[in-house]
């Protein structure tokens, strides 16, 4: 029996509001509510970065929240996927260029799935999260795959030539 195919059935979500107008948050809550019920895919809104797989971000990055986003991303164990929910978190949206707004989330952490819409509808959010589960599975396989390096690692001082190694990987 192949046990590994079951692991994509329980993606746990961490929802973070990085300065949103609350529109997308309400839609995410609607996903959890009886009508859309994303718990049937095994998703739980954990609220704990150390136990979650998918980081769901709503809203543009404000100056206050950018360190929190990076911190939350760093606290999540691998494999992890980031989903930007709504136009604001994808690009900055209507708030782009304001004095307290830094722009989209992808300026600070790598984003895998962009969900458009202001506010994005629950169907779109579910669709985005389902795509994210596929990416999570791919990342899981990548973690298990062994890679042969094209360049030998050389340690100079305290640094490894990691940029050179990463450049020759793909």
């Amino acid at each position: 029996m192949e046990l590994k195919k079951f692991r994509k059935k329980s993606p746990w979500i961490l929802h973070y509001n990085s300065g949103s107008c609350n529109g997308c948050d309400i839609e995410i809550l609607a996903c959890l509510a009886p009508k859309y019920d994303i718990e049937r895919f095994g998703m739980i809104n954990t609220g704990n970065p150390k136990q979650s797989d998918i980081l769901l971000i709503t809203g543009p990055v404000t100056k206050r929240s950018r360190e929190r986003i990076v911190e939350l991303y760093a606290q999540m164990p691998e494999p992890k996927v980031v989903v930007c929910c709504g136009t604001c978190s994808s690009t900055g949206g209507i708030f782009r260029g304001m004095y307290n707004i830094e722009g989209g989330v992808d300026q600070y952490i790598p984003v895998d799935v962009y969900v458009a819409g202001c506010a994005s509808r629950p169907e779109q959010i579910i669709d985005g999260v389902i795509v994210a589960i596929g990416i999570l599975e791919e990342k899981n396989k990548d973690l298990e795959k062994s890679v042969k390096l094209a360049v030998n690692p050389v340690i100079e001082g305290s640094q490894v030539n990691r940029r050179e190694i990463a450049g020759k990987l793909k």
Partner: protein
Amino acid sequence: MNKIIIQLLLIFISPVIGGLIYGIERKVKARMQRRIGPPILQPFYDFLKLADKRAMIVHSTHAFFGIMHFVSLWFALAVLILGGDLILVIFLHLLSTSLLILGGFSTRSIFSHLGANRSAISALAYEPILIIIAVSIYMVTGSFDVSSILNYPTPLLYKMPLAFIALLLILPVKLKKSPFDISEAHQEVVGGAEIEYSGIFYEAIYTAKWLDYVFCYALIYLFAANNIVLSFVLITGSFLYINALDNSTARVNYKQMLRFAFGVAFPIAIINLLMTIL
């Protein structure tokens, strides 16, 4: 000889039974809210996923406390199933809870501290009542041994119904269900003492939660000793009661919980004890 093989088998598959109980519970809870709900095997999917996550560790003592929480809970359950001393079982369960509390206090996370604090308060609320129930069981049957309690001719429910009511009142505290889920409280302290565990170390805590279900329903089974129909009715009834209560009530704060435990459940248990003595 045959009996001990069944008991050992029961001990080894008790996490699986607990996982199934948890899966059914999530399904029942979803149905009560008119949702579809996750599949019944969902806890095992979670288990497999957590095994594949990369392990992050705060420090070794913290992880050790988490694993020992699971091991000591399993040990308490083993003593209960093998027919050991009921008081010993209750204190082993308290030991496992206190290991989790120590684990919560061993990190510097403020949520972990709050959750550990609240876990200690919950233990303060339910532990005296459990011990009084055990003492009144001794008064009726003349023994603390689970094996001789199970061999008692009439079910304990008829002898001491008030003790069963007291047990039902504190079960939500013990299982961390609303309205007394202050120690877990996902919206307030994000899981409490278990917040800093991740990956394979969280798995121990997660499986310990399943064992807790088996432990509580085994305590209920004591009240319907050797009567299969009655035990089925009691376990199913209390299962539905706990889930209905969980779905229909809001969380109280710790003062209200303590006031309820010592103002309502504790006097009921004491009256029951006095009735069994007289």
